[in-house]
């Protein structure tokens, strides 16, 4: 029985006494909002979504239209060059005809000297050079079109990845998002390789048709017959191809998903010796993808020969009709030869049309898959208020009747109910309580990882929802329990690309008690850290995350159980270090009585509500739950890291 990653059928309401992780609480809200319901904050409906509208035909035309609008210069150039190619191709034929009539015939019948052929050859060569140059530029401009558009899709995707809230990320797997960026973006642009060629060859189509009409109407229409046949064949093709491609692209995403998760857990797989199981899981998906690809191939295999054969059928038809007209005396033999030649010209745009139509389903499917991400609107939208602040000025944090309720099919679950308190500027406020009391949800709101469903959270005097992203992140530094490390140097992990001097970085590392460790490394600040911080211990990662928070001299420092892997002495050293470099408001979620004792204020939460607040001594006296918790902690004899490197 293979295990597939999936959500259980019904949505899972959260447990009452569990602290939901800030990353993704168990909520019932579904995935991306449907296109019809997208509104901006102030209620305006948004303009055209990324998703392609309408039926197959409209989707195809929309893709073409949007891409050309996106890269107008490239496509204008591509189409013009393709038209030039068309003209040159016609020219080659005409020149050969001219050479045959005015040079070859007289030469071979002795009327002209052989040397006059060189003129003909020279003209032909010139035309050919023009032709070849136009081919080169046609292809190059087409590739600009394709790859510019691919990069554009990927940039739209990266914008979403980095602006959508953590809750959305919790619902999508990394592997699937990778597939959107690689395979779907590539599929979405597949049609644009032959497209400029096709659009440019319309010239050839028109020219040859007009010339055919001049020869004989019946012949012209015999030739043109292949066009509606081709369109009809292609419509049928699209009908079968589209679902097949959808399935194949979807499965590419799933293969990517399984692979990514499996590689993330590679160490676990190794230590449990479950490689065979992972192989089975992966194999299931790859075999499904294989079947889907084969289906796509079969559909193509059926239609491609048909499209390819059409020009040939056309020339047979022309021949038959030509001879019939010949027998009627309506055309001469030379006309038939001309018609056959013109048809061969005609065949080129027909074939390119076939290519475009063949690739279109793939592009439509790819585009729409990209659209499922790009059309997702963030539910947490930053405000626009810029507040300049001078560093080292701490700000207060106020919770005013803050509530957080999840609306579910079965019941409403309240994780936070009417929480009000103030963390005074420059002071240390500790939130305590059992697991599930709502502490993490509450502090996450300060950094706007969550928005309350009722009430207001303020930093200073401003509602956090009004502040611009920059203003908020400059004011508030949030350190969570699980500290993420980027595959970059120590310096980069601390500065996150902002302009901090090395001195400032060292100072932050000192406060975070990580300076000695850093100095011991041969490359010091430039020491590269592995993906996810694989070459650091848990405690070192936490200290790095704290250094990252401190270097910014935030007005508010939020620590969500961020010192859990550090022993009390180190934690206290960090906290006193923080106050030494400048005044900061500290809001901490903590469990240790040691932390509580140092706090200026303790806010005790139980099941989403404040049941008491005050200093450690006050609460010990007045609140039995508090006493219990503190004693339980001390009784468990929990001491910490013996690591003495800091």
């Amino acid at each position, binding site marked *: 029985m293979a295990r597939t990653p999936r959500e*259980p059928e019904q949505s899972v309401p959260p*447990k009452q006494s*569990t602290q939901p*992780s800030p*990353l*993704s609480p168990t909520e019932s809200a579904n995935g991306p909002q449907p296109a019809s319901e997208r509104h901006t904050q102030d209620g305006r409906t948004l303009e055209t979504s990324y998703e392609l509208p309408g039926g197959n035909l409209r989707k195809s035309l929309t893709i073409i239209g949007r891409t050309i609008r996106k890269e107008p210069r490239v496509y204008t150039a591509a189409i013009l060059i393709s038209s030039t190619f068309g003209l040159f191709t016609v020219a080659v034929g005409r020149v050969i005809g001219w050479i*045959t009539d005015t040079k070859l015939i007289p030469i071979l019948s002795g009327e002209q000297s052989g040397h006059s*052929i060189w003129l003909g*050859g020279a003209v032909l*060569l010139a035309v050919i050079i023009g032709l070849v*140059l136009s081919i080169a530029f046609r*292809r190059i401009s087409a590739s600009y079109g394709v790859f510019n558009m691919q*990069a554009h899709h990927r940039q739209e995707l*990266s914008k979403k*990845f980095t*602006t959508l809230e953590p809750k959305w*990320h919790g619902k999508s797997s990394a592997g699937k998002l*990778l597939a959107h*960026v690689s395979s779907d973006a590539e599929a979405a642009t597949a049609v644009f390789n032959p497209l400029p060629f096709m659009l440019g060859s319309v010239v050839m189509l028109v020219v040859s048709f007009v010339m055919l009409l001049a020869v004989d109407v019946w012949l012209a229409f015999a030739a043109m017959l292949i066009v509606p046949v081709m369109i009809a064949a292609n419509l049928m093709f699209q009908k079968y191809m589209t679902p097949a491609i959808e399935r194949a692209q979807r499965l590419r995403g799933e*293969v990517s998903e399984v692979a990514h998760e499996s590689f*993330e857990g590679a*160490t*676990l*797989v190794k*230590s449990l*010796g479950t*490689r065979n199981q992972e*192989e089975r899981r992966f194999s299931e998906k790859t075999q499904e993808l294989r079947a889907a*690809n*084969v289906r796509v191939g079969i559909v193509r*295999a059926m239609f491609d*020969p048909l499209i390819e*054969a059409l020009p040939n059928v056309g*020339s*047979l038809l022309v021949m038959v009709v030509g*001879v019939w007209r*010949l*027998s009627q*005396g309506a055309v001469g033999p030379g006309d*038939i030869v001309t018609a056959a030649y013109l048809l061969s010209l005609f065949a080129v745009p027909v074939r390119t049309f076939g290519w475009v139509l063949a690739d279109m389903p793939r592009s439509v499917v790819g585009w729409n898959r990209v659209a499922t991400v790009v059309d997702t609107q963030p539910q947490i939208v930053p405000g626009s208020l810029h507040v300049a602040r001078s560093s080292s000025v701490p700000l207060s944090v106020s919770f005013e009747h803050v509530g957080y309720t999840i609306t579910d099919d079965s019941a409403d679950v309240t994780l936070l109910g009417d929480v009000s308190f103030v963390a005074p500027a420059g002071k240390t406020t500790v939130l305590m309580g059992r697991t599930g009391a709502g502490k993490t949800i509450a502090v996450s709101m300060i*950094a706007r*990882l969550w928005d309350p469903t009722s009430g207001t959270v303020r930093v200073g005097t401003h509602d956090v929802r009004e502040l611009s*992203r920059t203003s908020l*992140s400059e004011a508030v530094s949030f350190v969570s329990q699980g500290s*993420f490390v980027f*595959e970059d140097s120590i310096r980069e992990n601390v500065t*996150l*690309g902002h302009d901090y001097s090395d001195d400032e970085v060292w100072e932050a590392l000192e406060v975070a008690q990580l300076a000695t460790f850093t100095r011991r490394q041969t490359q010091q600040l430039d020491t590269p850290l592995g*993906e*996810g911080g694989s070459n650091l211990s*848990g405690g070192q990662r936490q200290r790095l995350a704290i250094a990252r928070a401190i270097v910014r001299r935030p007005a508010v420092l939020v620590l969500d159980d961020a010192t*859990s892997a550090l022993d*009390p002495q180190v934690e206290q050293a960090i906290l006193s270090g923080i106050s030494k470099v400048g005044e900061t408001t500290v809001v901490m979620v903590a*469990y240790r009585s040691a932390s509580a004792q140092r706090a200026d204020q303790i806010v005790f939460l139980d099941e989403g509500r404040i049941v008491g607040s005050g200093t450690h001594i006050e609460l010990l006296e007045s609140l039995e739950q508090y006493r219990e918790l503190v004693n339980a902690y001390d009784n*468990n004899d*929990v*001491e*910490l*890291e*013996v690591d003495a490197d800091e």
Partner: protein
Amino acid sequence: MSNSESSIASASDLGVFATIKRGISVTPEIVTGIWVTLLLAIVASAGKITVPMAVQRALDSIASSGADGVEVRDIAAVSLLALGALVIAGLCTAALNVRLFRSTEAGLAHLREKAFSHIHQLTVLTQNTERKGALVSRVTSDVDTVSLFVQWGGIMLVTSLLQLIAASIVMFFYSWQLALLVWATFIPFVIALQPAQKGVNRAFTQVRSRMGAMLGAVSEAVVGASTIAAYGIGDRTQSKIDAAAIAHRDSAITAAKKVAVSFSGGAFAANLVLVIVVIAGAYLGVAGEISLGSLVAFLFLVQLFTGPVQLATEILNEMQNAVAGWRRVLAILETPIDVTSPAESAHAVASGPAHLIVENIDFAYPAGPKVLDNVSLNIAPGQRVAIVGETGSGKTTLAKLITRFSDPRAGRILLDGLDLRDHSEEDLRRRILLVPQEGFLFADTIFNNVAYPLRAHGMQSHMELEERVRGALHALELERWLATFPAGWDTYVGQRGDKLSAGERQLIALARAYVCEADLLVMDEVTSAVDPATEVAIARALDVLMTNKSTVTIAHRLSTAQNSDVVVVMDAGVVVEVGNHSELLAAEGRYSQMYAAWIAQTHNA
């Protein structure tokens, strides 16, 4: 003895045809039934050439005999025959394409699976030389390029070649002199082709490598999404990804330009032939070697020749792209596996609490100093051993060697008398289990996460699985905790278990460890101070888990050391003290120093 740690190469450095050969030898299914497929291709090509030929002959006769010499009926008959040939050609093409897709996709699926399996077999160190996203690209997008190439036009190369041959034969009949000239015109082009293709190949390799880099960047952004949101560095991260996307685009356009030049070269040669034929034909005609009609026909034939040549060039170019992708996958398969196990253990392997002997082992990371120096240990069956020491003392490395994530550079490790290296992988993993600091959970239910190793080792019946999982939860006293979830063990834990707290993830990891029933537990102690309730639960669960097994714990708490049977104190890669808590205190050595410092800390806090 394994040698230095390998890293994953960016791409295999085989040439184009060598890559195809190697690729086929790795997954021979690709060429299943190739002869029948080729036969179909020959028939299809023959059919495709029939119609233009027939048309040409008919036009010839029309032109020469005029209106009277031609009967509609005759022409119609010829047309029908030609149509028939076309239909046959079409059917053959369809059939051969289907055969081709089937065999290619079978081979490629197999290739994916092989690469996937190989990646898992690499040591953790080797795996970490490449980002997760880039590793994923090797089994997805790199293989996709081969698949797409075949879908697009794999067989066209063969049919083009066959058409070329057919056209050449007919050309020889019309005028051998001109035919030779035609071939001669192409020779310089063919010679220039090879180095041009090499350049194209290099360009495509760069494209694939940049794709891998882009996916690496995206993966990091997605996995670290919370941190990125909290610090408001979304813009910076977006720029990184965008830069990678642009880098990919630039390399793709460079490759496309090279392809365009190469293709245009082919087109030039193909059309230059016309000029050559026209001029030479004129002279030959004057010399009486060729008639006007034949010359006109030859001119027409040449088009049949040059079309496939251009198509073949196009295909060869696209093939470079596919080959570049193929090489990246093959590079994975070429990466040496530093730690290999025999298929079967050297002799029957025992069960029950393990007796572990570490004998004089040395270890150093590649190009680094010794991290372990002549370390020896003796762990009796059922003993609880704690290893303490500062960061950098080598205790983590020791744990890695005991669980055979790496092999020592000198010395050996014996499990019940048998060297770890003589154990089959299955036996080894059955007996030894690593419980890391942070347990990795799959995006699945609690039940499936706990049952994972059971399913992996073949247990199918749901009843049995439930029994074992229930047993684990009961033994570790986790039932009450589980009951607080409305969905019980069907609760979905989220990506990487992120819907649960760290402590809860650890509880599930412990339950999972319990069902493995290993004989030696190697634990990297959880250091997070989680809330007291979970803390207690973890401690109790651990106690049960460690019963009736030998345990080696990398201890971060001196209380753990206090409660162990044996404490091993390490410093700078060397074992400095061994004994139990009281012995070591009495010895007044390193351990007693550490203990005193810890006492002082707790009193100050």
